[in-house]
């Protein structure tokens, strides 16, 4: 029992101890003074601090990593990377070509100079003046201004060796027109700074077994070439670097735009349909897409609003009769009644159900028509004939109701349509006209006027009519004006007419018949 209480008390004490230490900075816990609690609380507090810090750092790092990964995945980055690589490769190739041709040019210039010298010395040799030749070589060697070295050696006899002894630098025999290190082709004092200087060599066999070798040190040229090479490499790397930075920058800015779009999209998805994407003044492709998406959102918002309206109306108009039906049955069941009573109530219940079904069917038809889901094959129909049929039916009804009925169907236009729907729309209009015209001298009139190109079907009456400010409203579903609340009907008649008219690309007009209402459906042949 005791231990249980202690166990239960511990966590609370720990919290208190920690809070006390943190907030008040008091080393002695004034609240609990509990040794056990302190013992647990103290090591817990410092342990939690780094953990908190760790998560604090880890989150942005992880975020940055994620952001980085996303950045590398953007198409902008990928494209700029490809572009950077291609561009760098191209510039490297161009600069490389320049480098190689410069090198070639320099070498052939050096070679030309070497050939010139060789020709001069060979001419001396050919004229037979061996001492002059040797003198010339000695002199040139002493000057050594242009980094040129001469050597006359014997490849076979010892005579050559003798001549060679007089030379300050001995050149080894090498293949002509190659570039070597000085140290490889010449006898230099050990540790000479010139050992690694490049030298271009030309070698000529003389007829007496002697061999003329001329070397040309090309350190300056080599330095120039090396510098050029460094420039080429540097330029290539710089191009690559700037392209990468450019790619990252473009990628980031694209990502930022996209992020703003997707953030807004998330907000919209979470239910706030009034949100819109930001459209900047740059008027670029992103703004174009954002504007288009905004238009789409506007349309969706409208649709949802009207759907909400419809569901509300449906809920209202189906719920009230359903409630009525349910209550009727429930109240009947409250106590024993005679069979006659049950029969009457059930009859009424069936009537309620029928009226529900009628409303439901009408709603379904309208919804289907408004969604443009009329699968029926359209065909050319004789509108006058169709109107005449309806006129016969309703003329008889009007007569029974004590109303005058006038049909003026002088034309019989041929029109491509769904004749069932046109007939239904017409019967709905006549149903309404007969229902609302109750005057002593009541009149309902149906007329078809026009020709094959454009015609109108007009239903007029001299009933109460519809006040001008209400005329737009009566097209809404379930709208029933105050004075018709108690007459039968579901308030869907005109909505259906309008849906049919819209489906056929025609126009519907309500006008004052002074007195009464005049409904005109205007059709025109489709092009």
């Amino acid at each position, binding site marked *: 029992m005791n231990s249980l209480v202690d166990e239960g008390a511990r966590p609370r004490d720990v919290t208190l101890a920690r809070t006390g230490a943190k907030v008040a900075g008091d080393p002695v816990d004034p609240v609990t003074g509990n040794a056990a609690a302190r013992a647990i609380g103290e090591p817990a507090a410092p342990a939690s601090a780094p953990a908190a810090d760790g998560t604090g750092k880890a989150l942005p790092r992880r975020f940055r990593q994620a952001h980085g990964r996303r950045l590398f995945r953007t198409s902008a980055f990928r494209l700029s990377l490809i572009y950077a690589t291609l561009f760098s490769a191209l510039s490297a190739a161009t600069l490389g070509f320049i480098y190689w041709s410069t090198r070639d040019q320099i070498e052939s210039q050096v070679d030309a100079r070497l050939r010139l010298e060789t020709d001069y010395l060979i001419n001396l040799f050919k004229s037979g003046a061996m001492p002059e030749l040797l003198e010339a070589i000695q002199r040139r060697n002493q000057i050594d201004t242009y980094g040129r070295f001469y050597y006359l050696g014997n490849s076979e006899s010892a005579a050559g060796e003798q001549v060679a002894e007089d030379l300050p630098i001995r050149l080894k025999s090498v293949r002509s027109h190659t570039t070597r290190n000085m140290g490889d082709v010449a006898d230099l004092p050990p540790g000479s700074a010139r050992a690694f200087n490049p030298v271009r060599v030309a070698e000529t066999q003389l007829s007496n077994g002697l061999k003329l070798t001329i070397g040309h040190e090309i350190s300056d040229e080599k330095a120039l070439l090396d510098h050029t090479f460094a420039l080429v490499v540097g330029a290539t790397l710089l191009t690559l670097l700037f392209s990468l930075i450019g790619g990252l920058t473009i990628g980031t800015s694209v990502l930022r735009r996209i992020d703003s779009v997707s953030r807004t999209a998330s907000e919209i998805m979470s239910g706030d349909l009034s949100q819109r994407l930001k459209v900047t003044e740059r008027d670029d492709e992103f703004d174009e897409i954002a504007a288009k998406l905004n238009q789409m959102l506007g349309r969706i918002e409208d649709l949802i609003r009207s759907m909400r309206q419809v569901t509300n109306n449906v809920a209202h108009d189906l719920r009230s009769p359903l409630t009525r039906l349910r209550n009727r049955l429930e109240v009947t069941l409250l106590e024993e009644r005679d069979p006659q009573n049950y029969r009457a109530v059930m009859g009424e219940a069936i009537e309620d159900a029928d009226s529900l079904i009628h409303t439901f069917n009408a709603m379904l038809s309208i919804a289907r028509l408004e969604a443009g889901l009329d699968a029926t*094959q359209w065909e050319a129909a004789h509108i006058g004939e169709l109107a005449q049929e309806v006129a016969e039916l309703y003329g008889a009804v009007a007569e029974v109701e004590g109303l005058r009925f006038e049909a003026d169907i002088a034309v019989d236009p041929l029109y491509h349509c769904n004749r*069932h729907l046109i007939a239904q729309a017409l019967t709905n209009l*006549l149903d309404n006209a007969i229902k609302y015209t109750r005057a002593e001298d009541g009149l309902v009139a149906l007329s078809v006027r026009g020709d094959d190109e454009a015609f109108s079907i007009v239903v007029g009456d001299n009933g109460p009519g519809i006040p001008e400010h209400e005329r737009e409203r009566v097209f809404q579903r379930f709208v029933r004006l105050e004075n018709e609340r108690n007459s039968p009907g579901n308030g869907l008649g005109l909505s259906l007419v309008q849906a049919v008219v819209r489906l056929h690309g025609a126009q519907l007009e309500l006008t004052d018949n002074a007195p009464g209402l005049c409904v005109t459906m205007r059709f025109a042949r489709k092009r």
Partner: protein
Amino acid sequence: MRILLVEDDVEAAGYLVKGLTESGHVIEHAEDGEIGLQLAVANAYDSMIIDRMLPKRDGLSLIEELRRMGNMTPVLILSALDDVDERVTGLKAGGDDYLTKPYQLSELIARLQALTRRAQTGVQGTVLNVGDLTLDLIRHKVTRSGQNINLQPREFRLLEYLMQHTGQVVTRSMLLENVWDYHFDPQTNVIDVQISRLRGKIDKDFDSPLLHTVRGAGYKLQEAASTVETG
């Protein structure tokens, strides 16, 4: 009448079986298209009621299969799809009539009887007779007790349809569909007015009425007035 009902909604089928049994029919129920096909092949029925959407074998495919096998038993299709096009599809598959759910029991019985009768009598003659009322389809002439009766073209077709279904209940929507080709119900009961006009022409001046109203169901053209049913 021996009727086969193929309907997967057991509760709805239960009401239908009860209603049809109480109005004097023998009815057998199959819950899916395959069982329906087996029953239809094994037994001889006067008519069949087949739901359009069924498990295992779709209603339309069941009808097509039966027709392919040479079974010509009249079929009434029940469906929740009420497009004019759906009707056409159903009738093309071999159905004889098409009734949209929800329906009135009296409507269903009337249509079943019309189907069965049509199947039994086959081709109609060119002159129809009910009592002393005669309708000549060729000469387009109606007489009663030798007296000429002038009818509008539409009234003539209305009477023709009623006479083709003599002794049977004909519902308002059957008349709308078959005489006017309207597949919707106008709110005003235009049919009642048409019937009363027709009645004024064929019954008014004669002693025994032929055209009777069947309460809660429709109309019936019949010689004797005593056998009027109640719906």
